[in-house]
């Protein structure tokens, strides 16, 4: 039996079950069990998919020559699928205890799985309009989750996020419409087959601009980043981990890679735009982060900065490819970008979960009001330290290896100034996380927080698991790179051959 549609069908089914359960006032253990079971099954399924070759599934049997909607499992989508399932599993386990403070657990799980279904759909689909629909499913679920606590700040952040998100969706739909008019198809592979004939048309610049704005806003790249520092910290901590850890990747960066590498074909202009967006996001994000005192807000600004690394690195890869430079350099740049994307998912969701754990016991997110938390909360403290060292790029944690690879790739591509900028941003990141450690974990324990304790094993276990991933992800890279990254890197570098891989011939 074909399993690809189940990655969308299972979360959707579970998402619709939860509100019914909530309204029937079923036992809490049943809800928790179903949520953990569903995410665990999806994680196992996505890991199983890694061992299988690329394949295409045509929904409802509408295969070419009558192209319907297709689901595609290639290297890049498998990589994203595993990341999404892994982070959602850890977030759900963390939620079991953390969501005690909120009512309506069933609605929370329902929205969570709707978000998951949307992201899985985005990652798997091979159809442009379907992509738009799934992005909207994920986005609407995330708007509601940001406002889940119904406090004034949360409502305000959610409103801002919703307005900007809807504008970006309108631009995406506009781009899809224009592309349909140009090519007469919505299938990404068929568009890719016609892309060489279209390149250079003035209208293609318009289409590219629509998609860059639309998905750039979803990925919170710098001129379009204003919503992220409000929206991500306002959500409950496990949702912050999902939004920062995977939504801006699956709904933003992944789609940019997919469209501009596989569907339009990378050219020099797009590559330079990627590099510029990446470099600016990297720098501005970290500069805004350094001055923050709200822990979660600081983390949110770092998300912008770290995604800048990913976009810059992949953009450099695309540029080398487009100007006909050495393929190994392009391959290294793309590889490093994808590696950093996965690492960022691991350490940023870990950081957000740590902030949630601290907020759960201390009741505050302000760094100035915390202090000495590593003594009463040794496990959270340890996990937080590991994540901070990872994001700052300290060996032997995973962030160090991916940043090292990014810098090597940029130097090999000949962009020395950008490499220097990358190193500088890395130092600034370290600086701001020294501040986090100094104020949250070290120093005297404030009088008010004398009685805090670790929040329990259900909250500590996901932290420790993610911390282990941060450590081993870098050290064991040679062991799993061939299964996870190489196929993804090949899928991106093969560019417009995407069309041939899907449609055959």
């Amino acid at each position, binding site marked *: 039996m074909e399993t690809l549609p189940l990655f969308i069908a299972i979360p959707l*089914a579970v998402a*619709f079950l939860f509100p019914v359960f909530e309204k*029937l006032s079923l036992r809490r253990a049943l809800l928790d069990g179903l949520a953990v079971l569903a995410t665990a099954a999806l994680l196992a399924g996505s890991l199983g998919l890694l061992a299988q070759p690329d394949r295409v599934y045509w929904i409802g049997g509408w295969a070419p020559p009558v192209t319907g909607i297709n689901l595609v499992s290639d290297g890049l989508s498998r990589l994203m699928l595993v990341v999404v399932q892994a982070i959602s599993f850890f977030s759900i386990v963390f939620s079991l205890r953390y969501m005690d403070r909120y009512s309506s657990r069933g609605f929370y799980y329902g929205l969570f799985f709707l978000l998951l279904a949307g992201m899985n759909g985005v990652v798997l689909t091979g159809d442009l309009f379907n992509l738009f629909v799934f992005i909207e499913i994920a986005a609407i679920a995330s708007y509601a989750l940001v406002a889940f606590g119904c406090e004034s700040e949360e409502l305000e952040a959610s409103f801002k996020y919703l307005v900007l998100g809807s504008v970006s969706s309108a631009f995406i739909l506009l781009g899809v419409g224009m592309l349909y008019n140009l090519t007469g198809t919505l299938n990404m592979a068929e568009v890719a087959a016609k892309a060489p004939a279209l390149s250079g048309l003035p209208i293609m610049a318009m289409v590219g601009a629509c998609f860059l704005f639309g998905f750039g806003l979803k990925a919170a790249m710098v001129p379009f980043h204003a919503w992220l520092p409000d929206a991500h910290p306002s959500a409950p901590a496990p949702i912050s981990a999902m939004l920062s850890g995977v939504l801006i990747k699956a709904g933003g960066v992944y789609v940019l890679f997919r469209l501009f590498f596989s569907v339009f074909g990378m050219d020099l202009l797009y590559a330079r735009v990627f590099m510029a967006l990446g470099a600016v996001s990297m720098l501005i994000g970290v500069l805004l982060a350094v001055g923050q005192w709200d822990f979660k807000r600081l983390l949110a600004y770092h998300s912008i900065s770290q995604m800048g690394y990913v976009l810059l690195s992949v953009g450099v890869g695309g540029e080398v490819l487009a100007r006909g430079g050495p393929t190994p350099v392009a391959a290294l740049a793309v590889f490093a970008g994808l590696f950093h994307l996965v690492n960022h998912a691991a350490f940023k969701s870990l950081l957000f979960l740590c902030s949630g754990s601290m907020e759960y016991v201390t009741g505050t997110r302000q760094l100035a009001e915390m202090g000495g938390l590593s003594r009463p909360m040794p496990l959270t403290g340890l996990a937080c330290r590991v994540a901070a060292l990872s994001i700052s790029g300290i060996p032997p944690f995973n962030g160090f290896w991916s940043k090292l690879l990014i810098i090597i790739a940029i130097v090999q591509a000949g962009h020395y100034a950008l490499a220097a900028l990358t190193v500088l941003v890395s130092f600034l990141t370290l600086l701001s996380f020294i501040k986090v450690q100094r104020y949250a974990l070290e120093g005297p324990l404030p009088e008010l927080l004398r009685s805090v304790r670790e929040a329990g094993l259900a909250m500590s276990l996901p932290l420790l698991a993610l911390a282990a991933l941060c450590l081993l992800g870098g050290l064991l890279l040679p062991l799993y790179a061939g299964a996870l990254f190489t196929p993804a890197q090949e899928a991106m570098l093969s560019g417009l051959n995407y069309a041939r891989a899907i449609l055959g011939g």
Partner: protein
Amino acid sequence: MQATSESGGGLSPIVKTVARWMAGFILVFGLSVVLYGHLTPGGGFAGGVVLSAAFILVVLSHGRREVLQILSERAPTIYDGLAALAFLLLAVLGYAAGGFFLNFLPKGQPFQLWSGGIIPLCNLAIGVKVGACLFGVFAALAVFRHLHQRSA
């Protein structure tokens, strides 16, 4: 109008009676739009909107207080979830015949009511879902909000 809707008391008996009569016709019309969705313009979504309009009309004319006595807060959510699950079930049942969303029922003759395989069933599920969902949204914003309102 303003005063009555603020207190949730409903409109005059003439309006209430006419609204009750109309609601029945609107329901029948909505159902026909849903059931003939695979043959004529319309279908699950359009028909579902019409279905929810019938309920909304009754709420508007009878006012909040009267409606709250017969309306369960959880009914729209439950019908919404179950209809969505039914739609998904139709998609997954396709696996038995060979594929996700495969139209596994006999297609029948074009232009007959019983034709199109699973499409009328999908329309029915969507119609119930949209009707329940839209009415749920309306009820949440216009009726139940006043129950849960916290002080600002």
